[in-house]
C-alpha cells in the first residue's frame, strides 16, 4: 500500500501540468520537430487511416516497427507512453476476460493481437506527430492546408490557456480541500477516500467554468482591439503569417523515405502474409 501511496504522491496537478506542456511545447529540438508541419500532417493522415483497412499482419508489424522508431526519435515523455501502454493492456485484458466468459480460450488472443497492433500503430503515430508539433506549428500547418482560421486559432489559444486553467483548477481544488473534511477512515480499499476525491474533482469544474466565462469577456474584447477580426477578413495577413513555412530537403527525404519503406513493406506483406503467426 505504501508503494501505491508514494506513486500517488508523485501525481500532482503541478506534475501533470508540466508533463502536458512539456509534451506540447518541448519539441523543436528533435529531428521530427524540425520538419515542416505540413509534412507531418500528411504523414499522419496516412498512418491514422490506412491501418484500419489493413489486415495483413506482416504489414502491420512493419508499420509498428516504423512507429517505434519515430516515437524514439521524437523523445516522447515516459508518462504519455505509460498511459498508452496501460490503455492498450487493459483494453486487451478486458476483451480477453469477456471472451473467456463466452467460452473462448487462449486462441482468442491472436485476433485481438491484430486489433492491438492496429491501435498501437495509430496511437504511436498520433503521439509522434503531436509531440513533434507544438500547437503553434500545428495550427499554422492546419491553416495552410485549408482548415478555417478560426479553428486553427482556437487550437493554439486552447493550449495557451491550458496552464492557466490547470493553475486555477489546482487552486479551486485546494479551496475544497482546505475547507472540506476528508473521511476519517479510509474505508474498505480506500473506497471512502477515493469517493471523496472523485467527488471534489468533479465539483471543481463548476466554479472553474464560471470563472472562465467571466474571464473570457476581456479576451474576446481584447481580440477585437488587437485586430483579430481584421486579420480574419484579410487573406494577405494569412499569407504573411504562414510565409515562414518551408519544405526543406529533410522534409522531402522523410516523406520519400516513408513512401519507399511502405512500398517495400506492402510488397513483402503480399509475399509473406503470415510471417508473424
Amino acid at each position, binding site marked *: 500500500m505504501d508503494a501505491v501511496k508514494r506513486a500517488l*504522491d508523485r501525481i500532482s496537478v*503541478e*506534475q501533470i501540468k*508540466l508533463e502536458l*506542456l*512539456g509534451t506540447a*511545447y*518541448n519539441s523543436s529540438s528533435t529531428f521530427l520537430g524540425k520538419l515542416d508541419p505540413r509534412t507531418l500532417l500528411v504523414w499522419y493522415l496516412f498512418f491514422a487511416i490506412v491501418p484500419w483497412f489493413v489486415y495483413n499482419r506482416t504489414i502491420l508489424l512493419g508499420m509498428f516497427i516504423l512507429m517505434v522508431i519515430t516515437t524514439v526519435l521524437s523523445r516522447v515523455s515516459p508518462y504519455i507512453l505509460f498511459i498508452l501502454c496501460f490503455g492498450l493492456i487493459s483494453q486487451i485484458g478486458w476483451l480477453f476476460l469477456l471472451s473467456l466468459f463466452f467460452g473462448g480460450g487462449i486462441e482468442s488472443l491472436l485476433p485481438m493481437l491484430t486489433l492491438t497492433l492496429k491501435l498501437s500503430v495509430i496511437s504511436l503515430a498520433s503521439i509522434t506527430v503531436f509531440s513533434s508539433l*507544438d*500547437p*503553434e506549428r500545428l495550427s499554422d500547418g492546419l491553416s495552410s492546408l485549408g482548415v478555417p482560421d478560426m479553428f486553427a486559432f482556437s487550437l*493554439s*489559444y486552447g*493550449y*495557451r490557456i491550458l*496552464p*492557466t486553467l490547470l*493553475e*486555477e483548477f489546482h*487552486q*479551486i481544488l*485546494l*479551496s*475544497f*480541500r*482546505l*475547507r*472540506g*473534511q*476528508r473521511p476519517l477512515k479510509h474505508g474498505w480499499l480506500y473506497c471512502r477516500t477515493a469517493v471523496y476525491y472523485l467527488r471534489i474533482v468533479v*465539483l*471543481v469544474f463548476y*466554479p472553474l467554468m*464560471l*470563472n472562465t466565462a*467571466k*474571464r*473570457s469577456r*476581456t*479576451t474576446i*474584447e*481584447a*481580440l*477585437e*482591439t*488587437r*485586430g*483579430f*477580426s*481584421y*486579420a480574419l477578413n*484579410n487573406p*494577405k*495577413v494569412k499569407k*504573411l*503569417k504562414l510565409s515562414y513555412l518551408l519544405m526543406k530537403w529533410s522534409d522531402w527525404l522523410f516523406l520519400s523515405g516513408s513512401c519507399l519503406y511502405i512500398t517495400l513493406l506492402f510488397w513483402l506483406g503480399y509475399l509473406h502474409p503470415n510471417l508473424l503467426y
Partner: protein
Amino acid sequence: MREPVLELKGVTFTYPGADQPVLHNVSMRLVEGDFTAVIGSNGSGKSTLCKCFNGLIPHYYSGDFSGEAVICGLSSEGRSVAELSRHIGYVYQDFENQLVRPTVMDDVCFTPLNYGFADYKERGERALALTGLSELRNEFIWQLSGGQKHLLALAGALAMEPEILVIDEPVAQLDPQHARHIYEILRRLNVEYGKTIVVIEHHAEFIADYCRNVILMDNGSIRWQKPVREAMSSVDELLALGIYPPDVTQAAWMLQPGLRLGRLYPLNVGEGKACFIHRDKEVVPSVLFTNEVHLVEKEKEIVVQMKDVRLSYRTIHRTMNPVLNGIGLTLRRGESVALIGNNGAGKSSLMKLIAGMVRPTEGTVNVKGIKVNGLPPERLSGIVAYIFQNPEEMFIEDSVRKEIAYYLKARRLTDTEERVEQMLHAFRLSELAEQDARLLSGGQQRRVSLAIGAAIRPAVMLLDEPTANLDISTKQEMVKVLETLRGQVETVVIATHDMQLVAEWASRIIVMHQGRIIADGSKDEIFADGQLLQRAGLAQTPLMELSQMLGLPHICSSLEEFTQNVALQKEGPVHSGCCQTGA
C-alpha cells in the same frame, strides 16, 4: 495650441437593459503628448469612458449611444473597433486575459501581424526593447511573473506604435519598485516618443509624480479636467468622493487653517521637505511603546515554527528552481505579521508551506505542535486558514452564506447557523448573504474571503495580498476589517507590497528577498532602514521618507501622527507653487 488627438462631444451611453446611462453628456478633449489620469470612485464610469476611445462603445457594446467621438481626426461612427484600434493601444486591468499567444515574441507580434505589417517582427522587437523584455522573447507566457505579463501587455499595445495608449490600472498588482518601473516607461513613451497616455489610476502618488492632467469622473459625467497640481489640491472635493490625494498633499491641507479653496499644495516628498518644519513640541514618541509590545510577545506561546526550510519547484526543463533557501522562523500568539518583499521573493511559498499546501523539500514546519510536512490540507484546515490573492478562486458555492457555511457543514458542527450569522454580521455581509460571491465588487469579494477564513476560527490566518486591486477607500476599509479579524484569530500573517497597510496594521515585519529572510523586526527598525527596503524591492511611504528628512523623533506612519509632529513653514520658499495661494 497643439492638435487634439481625441475628442468626445456630448457622449451619453446606456448599457443595454440598464435604466440609467453610465456616461452622461460627456465632453472632453486630449491634446497630442498629454499624460492624463482618469480618477473617480468605483462605478463612476472610468473604464466605460476609456472604452469610448477605441470604439468598443458603441460598436462592441451595443447600447444607447448619442454624441460623437473623434479619434485622431476620425469619427468613431461607421468605423470598426479594429480600424480605430490602429491608433489606440489598450491595456486592460485584467491584462492576463489579453495575452492570447503562447510565447512572448508571438504575443507581441500578434497585433501588427493581424494588421498585415510585413515588418511585424521588427515592431515586436522594438516594443520589447522599450519595455525591457528583449531577454525574455522566447519564454512562455505562463512562466512570466505578474509584472512581466503586465509589461508584455503594454508591449503588445506598443508594437502597433499607436498615437494613444490607454492603461487601466497600470500598477495594481505590482510591488512599489516594479510600479515605478512601469511609470518610468510610460513617461519615456510620453516625453521621448510623444505618445498620448491615459491611465485609470487610484494611486495619487503616481498621478502626482507622472501625470500632467487629471479628469475627475463622478456618476457618469466629467466633473472637471484640471492640471495635476490644481486637481490634487482639491482635497475636500476628492476626499468627499472617496479619493485620497497624496499623503504629503493631505498633510499640508490638514495643517492649513482657514480658507482652503483655491490653494495649491505640495505634491511629493521633495516639495514637502520645503514646506514642513519639525514642530518643537515633543510628542510622546511611540518607539518605546512598540518595542515593549515586541518584548512582551517574545514570551507568548509559539504557533508556527519553521526550521531550516527549503523549497524548490520543478520547471518544465526538468530542473529544480529553488524558491526558499533555509528559512527559520517562529511566529507567536497575538502577532500581526507582515511579510514583505518584491514580487517573487517567496512570500506566497512561505505561507503555502504553513498551510500545508506544498511540502518542503527540506526542513520541518510545525503548526501548533503538529508537524505539517506532507499532511493533507484537510487535516490542517481547522488550524490554518489561507486566503488566496484572487478571492474568486475561493468561491465554490453559489451564495455568500453557503460559502461561509461550507467548512462548518463539512464538519457537521452544531452551531453552524449561529456562526454564519455572526460572520455575516462582523464582515457586513448580511445584505449580500444570498448573492453569488462572484458577482460582487472587488472589496466585497475580499470581505467574503476573509469571512470564509474567519468562520473556521483558525489559529493562524494567512492572507496573500489582501489589498491588491482595491481602490484606496476600499483599502482603508480593509484595514478596519483586519482589525475585526484580530479578535477572532490568534496570529495573522499578511504577504503584501502595501507599505501603508504594513505601517497601519503590523506589529512585526519580516522582509524577504530571493527566498531568504533578510530582516525581522518592529516597524521602526525596518522602516528606518531605507537601504534594506530598497534591496527588497520596496519603498518607504512618502510620510516615512519625510519624517526621516525632517529629522522627526520617529518614523510617522499615519497622517495624524505626522501632522502632530510638523508645522507648515511660515515663509516657505517658492517651490513651483507649493504652499502658495493659487492664482
